[in-house]
């Protein structure tokens, strides 16, 4: 039995926990405002808000309902477009009408929900933050221009909501952005008795974290499978720093990583790099360990973590062990994890002050796209000499690649054009890209060479590296 509050009403459902929320809404609850556009989290037409009890109220996050297993909603407040409709139009809806920012209307409910989520959570009303909130929503009609005008109009009309962050929901209810039933949601959530989903004896449950990859690949198989929702285990979640080590719980979401001020302080390129990972809609659910276990040869976080010298803590029936991430992968989608084992933590040494860290990614489309090639570099430099360096690259081998020889080469080398030139040759010898839908092998070689140069352009702007280009 799964119990959660769906808009205004507490519901109990015996539907299989692996059922996607989108199917539950449309087929069982007759809530047709949440649209099915792609079933892979790439269009945003099915955007909903998930509210979780937090120490100071309820914290809402947008999510793609096509990738959200119903079982993970236990004890939550789930908001669909129907739950945002009041008597008239909310200011979000009105702004869209006023600017003609809806044409065919199919993507519009998702955009209304995403923008309402933005007003619920954002600590800034800057245009770039609003843009991030809707970046996972695809519209084929408007060219986005009218939607941006609507956002500008909306933000200008409600700039007071930031004044009192603790009373945000109250302010939003007063402004008719939220219906009044949001006011007592925190106490209603406290009164929902949630219980562990019953485990079926004959099946090993599949652990599910964010589900943003599992439910793209295997939604049909998982629907009636026994699942174990890792979100219930709070020990797997959160970021802490112990001495000189950053320790990240497996189910920490990518959006949480992106927003973490400690990480941003230590790694100036961090926020921009994580902004290139998927979309806010997906980052709200996608977890760090999920990206690692996905084992995509092009996983953005994996490439970042390889340069940061990350180690994985793995818990299994025979105890706990640690594996260095650069030794974890063994081939295409092959990795060092046994039956019953779980990655619980990811840790990496705090990059020393004055470090230079850079992430490069080129994909067909800059945002919400899988890279053709991505690469990260962490270097320490003293008096014009590189003392230590770690370089990683994705999309150029069957698994995410730590460029061992290239990294080793750099240590002790002067920061110079010649060093970069030799480095690019070494890098080229370490990789084995193939032709696929993200580009030809030839392209990926040329691209990585240029992205390695780009690392140095970003980290050492004084180098005149343009002469290395053909």
């Amino acid at each position, binding site marked *: 039995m799964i119990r959660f509050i769906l808009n205004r009403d507490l519901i109990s459902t015996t539907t299989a926990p692996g059922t996607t929320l989108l199917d539950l809404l449309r087929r069982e609850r007759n809530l047709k405002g949440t649209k099915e556009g*792609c079933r892979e989290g790439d269009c945003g037409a099915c955007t909903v808000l998930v509210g979780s009890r937090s120490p100071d109220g309820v914290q809402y996050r947008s999510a793609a309902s096509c990738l959200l297993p119903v079982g993970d909603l236990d004890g939550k407040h789930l908001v669909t477009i129907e739950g945002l409709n009041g008597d008239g139009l909310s200011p*979000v809806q009105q702004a869209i009408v006023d600017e*003609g920012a809806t044409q*065919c209307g199919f993507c519009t409910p998702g955009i209304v929900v995403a923008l309402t989520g933005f007003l619920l959570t954002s600590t800034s009303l800057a245009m770039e933050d609003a843009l991030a909130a809707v970046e996972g929503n*695809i519209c084929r009609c408007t060219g986005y*221009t009218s939607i941006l005008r609507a956002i500008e109009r909306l933000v200008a009309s409600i700039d007071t909501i930031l004044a009192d962050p603790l009373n945000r929901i109250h302010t939003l209810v007063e402004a008719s952005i939220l219906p009044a039933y949001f006011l007592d949601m925190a106490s209603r959530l406290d009164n929902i008795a949630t219980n562990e989903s019953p485990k079926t004896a004959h099946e090993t449950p599949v652990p599910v974290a964010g589900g943003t990859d599992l439910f793209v690949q295997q939604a049909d198989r998982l629907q009636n499978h026994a699942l174990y929702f890792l979100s219930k285990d709070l020990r797997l979640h959160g970021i802490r720093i112990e001495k000189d080590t950053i320790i990240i719980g497996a189910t920490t979401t990518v959006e949480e990583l992106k927003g973490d001020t400690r990480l941003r302080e230590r790694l100036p390129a961090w926020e921009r790099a994580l902004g290139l990972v998927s979309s806010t809609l997906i980052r709200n659910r996608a977890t760090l360990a999920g990206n690692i276990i996905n084992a995509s040869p092009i996983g953005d976080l994996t490439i970042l973590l390889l340069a940061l010298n990350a180690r994985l803590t793995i818990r299994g029936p025979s105890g706990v062990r640690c594996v260095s991430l650069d030794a974890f992968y063994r081939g295409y989608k092959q990795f060092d994890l046994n039956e019953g084992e779980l990655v619980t933590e990811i840790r990496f040494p705090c990059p020393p002050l004055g470090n230079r860290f850079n992430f490069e990614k080129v994909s*067909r489309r800059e945002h919400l796209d899988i890279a053709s090639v991505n690469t990260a570099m962490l270097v320490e430099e003293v008096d014009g000499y590189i003392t230590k360096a770690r370089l990683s690259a994705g999309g150029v081998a069957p698994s995410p690649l730590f460029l061992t020889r290239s990294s080793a080469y750099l240590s002790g080398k002067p920061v110079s054009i010649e060093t970069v030139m030799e480095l690019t040759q070494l890098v080229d010898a370490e990789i084995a890209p193939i032709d696929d839908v993200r580009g030809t092998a030839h392209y990926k070689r040329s691209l990585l060479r240029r992205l390695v140069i780009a690392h140095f352009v970003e980290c050492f702007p004084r180098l005149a590296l343009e002469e290395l280009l053909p």
Partner: protein
Amino acid sequence: MSSPDTFAHVRAESLFVDDLPEPAGTLHAAVFGSPVAHGAIRAMDVESAAMAPGVIAIFTARDIPGENQLGVIIEDEPLLAEDEVHYVGQPIAVVVAESSAQAREAVKRIAIDIDKRPPEFDPRRAAARGDLIAPARTLSLGNVDEAWARCATIVAGRVDSGGQEHLYLETQAALAIPEARGRMRLYTGTQSPSVVQRVAARILACPMHNIEVEVQRLGGAFGGKEEQATPWAAMAALAAQNLQRPVKLVLLRHEDMRMTGKRHPYSTDYRLGLDGNGRFLAFEATYYQNSGAAADLSPAILERSLFHATNSYFIPNVQITGMCCRTNLPPFTAFRGFGAPQAMFVMESAIAAAAEILNIPALQLQQANLLRPGNELPFGMRIEGDASRRSFETALARFDVKARREEIARHNETSPYLKRGLAIMPICFGISFTNTTLNQAGALVHIYFDGSVSVSTGAVEMGQGVLTKLRRIVAFALGIAETRVRLESTNTTRVANISPTSASTGTDLNGAAAVIACRLIMERLKTVAAALHDTTPERIAIREERVWIGDTCGPLDWHTLVQTAYSQRVDLSAHAFYATPDIHYDKKNEKGHPFAYHVCGTAVVEARLDALRGTAAIESVQIIHDAGRSLDLLVDRGQVEGAVVQGIGWLTIEELVHSPEGRLLSDSLSSYKIPDFHFAPPRIEVDFLEDPSAPGAVMQSKAIGEPPFMYGIGAFFAIRAAMRSVRDIPCDLIRAPLTNEQILRQLEGLPPAE
């Protein structure tokens, strides 16, 4: 005033086909498509599928009671393949089950044995083998053979453009409900209700009056639901008829992407000759249209390519040939612009090549050759009005092109990696179906006792705002408030023999028919009012919901007038019909006057290139567009902005990738990328041309759906301009889309890849 639908859209109360309440007992269908691109079916085993849980029935070509034929222009496409298959994904069988998941599970269990034949994917090779869908067509003006000798410069080359997935957000969907006395009610998302009606009747072997097609709204279409919404509705109807139960068929995204046709890829050879002053003297081109496996709308699309081959320019000697080449891909189909974008891209490529060879700015050649009033186009029509030149010159001045070009040149001198580029893109697009027959429309207007008005036309609302415009037209024609006017769904029982809502003609044709219907009723109402005021009907007018006698506002209001007319037994309904006047085309001589008018405009596009990483972005698009006297600026602005971004997508990031066996690899939103919030140019500025004149357009408001798409072509040349600041880029082979990979190749001195 916002669209009748927008209020419902933002509250998600607008229902699309998959949202409609399903009658009890509704079954769900899924389609089994061919796994190979070309071959003969030896045997198919559906036994295991038929035994799968929930499966009710499986239909193949043998179960079709009527004619197994989808083709409208040419009858060359079966609904369900019988003996042969011609592309991967070609529908072969329809599985019907209690749930859509069960139907899809069962589809996986169908086994088929196909004797594979070599597939063809290349239009040039197909043409060389003579495998054309229709005879080649040639248009000519003047005498090119004689003109070449007079040319000071001749440039020649090859231009390729890629296909484009429509990616309407609502996938193809249909719900068929069998009713008493042989009636089949079809809820579907089509731009062509009467084509669905006609084809479904043909498949079911029943008269058209048995089929009722109801269309409420489309979640995007862009041409992709002109012909290609039909098969799914016909399959649902076939199953529903056979089982006498409601059947719903909704394609999943990847099914839709694999099984339906897209914008045609073209490959073209051209030659352009100029005199010593940069005047175009001669243009020759051969267009190889990759048509896919069946005709669909390809011949009509090719025709429009030929009509727009010279875009906004006057060229006195032209000879252009086009061929619809048969290949083993899903039949390519209508997509915003309908063949014109591909042809205009060739023209602009030729101009770019000439400018690059002569080392002068392309805009100098563009400006010197713009159409002027009275210029003859290769198909015989003469240009009226001076909107091409006016929009071009207004754009150059208002958007400060001269100074910006200089500033960009300075920037590119000093910036090592970040380059900028600018391009001008004029457009000139003919309005009317090139198939003259289709330029007709009907409208049915009812006025109820209480003065409220109901309007049915053949126009389908798909986000383009046609209902907003029709409501405004009707309110104006009746002299009443827009809130009194309701636009109904599109239904074949209320308006018959509907032309597709396409070719940008939705408002022109249906609006004109609605105006005539309103006039018929108005004449009757004026007679009633004249008798009450003891005057003649000619002196009566209705404005602002009041009856006016001459210049005097009388005591009668709209509501009272309508009630009086009803009590006097006056007909308060009218059906009217409109056929665009003065258009004709003679296909034998390839001359005529196929268009009611042209829509012109000019865009200034600026691009940013990261020459280190090989990536590009469009910074701004600034447009002077001739909309005539816009019926609704918000709607028209939205159409321009949306079309521009689609156009930019077509030539940059949107790329169809197939396996060597002809299977679409870019079959999802994760592998086929369309513009997103970040990709869209941060600045799109749309100014409408002042002092417009638009005879032939309804209420002088010009058609707007397609023309602005072609402003997006400027993006290609703006990026190319930035690339040319890094190094010379050969112009003998120009290929779109200009993906990041293609940019990097060319920055490294390689030709664009196949």
